[in-house]
């Protein structure tokens, strides 16, 4: 039973790193997928910018955010889509849960939570790494205010990077809960569908959070949903800065800790059930 105690699982970083590397190389070998992704996301971003341009021109006074900030937000969103799309789950993990293969996973000397976490990080990062650069490169050269503009100085760049990493970790910690719920329910389709639609909408993937009605917006800013892509992108674009940025990064930290701890706890409980049932 000792082995299943996750908090005491040996955490040698090296195996996670080599795990990460393998996943990364596998991702790199899909070259045409990467180019196709760049093309698609660029087109998508372009159309989104044009759409908001129509709204801006219809009534500029109702626009809740600078147009150039919005453009930066949209291009970051497209460039880093692979990192932040919530619906991207690892089918292998679900398969191992439903088929009972998870029992074998438990035999490896890695913490299962940490391993799944790294696996998800690697898959998303390897997809995003290839796609982001060309999209951002093109977006930089688009005429103002339709392209991406650099952040307002070093401080907001640093805050953005911190917040980006935290946001990414919060997203994965959240998606871990979906995997864990599958251990309990075995069929995860229902939870997955509900969670995906809700998270996508509330995290500002469909329309940016500043465009939400004011009352709702104030609440959502404090939820883990806004802590994913919205906070870093808005910090980058200068829509959020100074004390507010620091405060929202604090919110991200709190959610990361909460989701992470809850995930580890729920997982160890779920795994106890697995071992009690004998797989």
């Amino acid at each position, binding site marked *: 039973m000792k082995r299943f105690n996750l908090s005491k699982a040996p955490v040698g970083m090296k195996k996670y790193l080599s795990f990460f590397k393998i996943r990364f190389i596998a991702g790199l070998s*899909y*070259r*045409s*997928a990467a*180019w*196709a*992704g760049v*093309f*698609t996301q660029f*087109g*998508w971003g372009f*159309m989104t910018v*044009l*759409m908001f*341009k*129509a*709204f801006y*021109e*219809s*009534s500029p006074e*109702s626009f*809740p955010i600078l147009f150039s900030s919005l453009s930066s937000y949209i291009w970051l969103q497209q460039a880093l889509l692979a990192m932040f799309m919530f619906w991207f789950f690892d089918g292998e993990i679900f398969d191992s849960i439903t088929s009972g293969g998870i029992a074998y996973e438990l035999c490896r000397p890695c913490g299962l939570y940490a391993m799944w976490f790294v696996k998800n990080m690697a898959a998303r990062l390897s997809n995003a790494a290839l796609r982001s650069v060309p999209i951002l490169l093109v977006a930089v050269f688009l005429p103002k205010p339709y392209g991406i503009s650099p952040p307002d100085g070093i401080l907001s760049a640093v805050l953005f990077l911190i917040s980006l990493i935290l946001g990414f970790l919060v997203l994965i910690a959240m998606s871990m809960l979906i995997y864990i719920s599958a251990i309990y329910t075995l*069929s995860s*389709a*229902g939870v997955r*569908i*509900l969670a*995906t*639609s809700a998270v*996508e*909408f509330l995290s500002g993937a*469909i*329309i940016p959070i500043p*465009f*939400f*009605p004011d009352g709702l917006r104030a609440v959502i800013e404090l939820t883990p949903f806004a802590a994913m892509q919205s906070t870093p992108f808005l910090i980058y674009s200068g829509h959020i800065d100074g004390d507010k940025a620091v405060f929202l990064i604090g919110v991200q930290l709190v959610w990361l800790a909460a989701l992470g701890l809850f995930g580890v706890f729920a997982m160890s409980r779920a795994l106890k059930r697995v071992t009690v049932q004998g797989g």
Partner: protein
Amino acid sequence: MRLYFKYLRMLVRSQLEYRESFIMTLLGQFLVSFSAFLGIYFILMRFHTVRDYTFPEILICFSSVLASFSLAECFARGFDAFPRLIKSGSLDRILLRPRGVAFQVLTSNLELSRAGRLLQAIFMLIYAVPRCGVVWTADKIATLAVMIAGGVLVFTALFILYAGFSFFTIEGLEFMNLFTDGVREFGQYPLSIYGEGVLKLFTYVIPVALFQYYPFLYLVGRSDDKRLALLPILGAVFILPCSLFFRLGLRRYKSTGS
């Protein structure tokens, strides 16, 4: 045709075997398009109109596109899921049967659960039809029907094009999403709001505006030219070059066997 219905019956029966996942997918499709609706709702609460189009007008536009897309996705799912057919080797089996390839692909799959979006489209129509200021005479109703039907054919053509590309590249297929999912998403608004260039692209290259924008102008009374209502029929011709491309891909498949 009799054979087509036989296939359909078979596929429906297969789907009913998995009632739970059927309902889940149905619900999922509904929720996804519901959040798109919520997005439009929030934005129009703030702006009220976009380039003079009102919320109910936009809903008419959105729901007709969504209805077309989901119907096409239900019935032409075989083309949409075609890459899997190639990967699993089922295409070889299709080639071993003495019937047309396109016919067999069409009948290889049917996804009734995709109608979740259709449900959303119907709800939006019910909301928007009395509120958009259109006097629903027979010719207006016919226009809406032609728009939806023309849309089904254009989306089907796009799925065929997608299937055609999968003969050349499977992993690179993602770019076609811009023209299938993308048209569904950006077709929420009349295509003219994106500017002249985009409208031209979607008129002359991919004839989406022919069923989405021009007949819509006539429908909501922004133009009196009745000929606009017939443009979806012209748009449907798009299915010909797409089928030709599919055939080209099939020929390539037969010479490389992969």
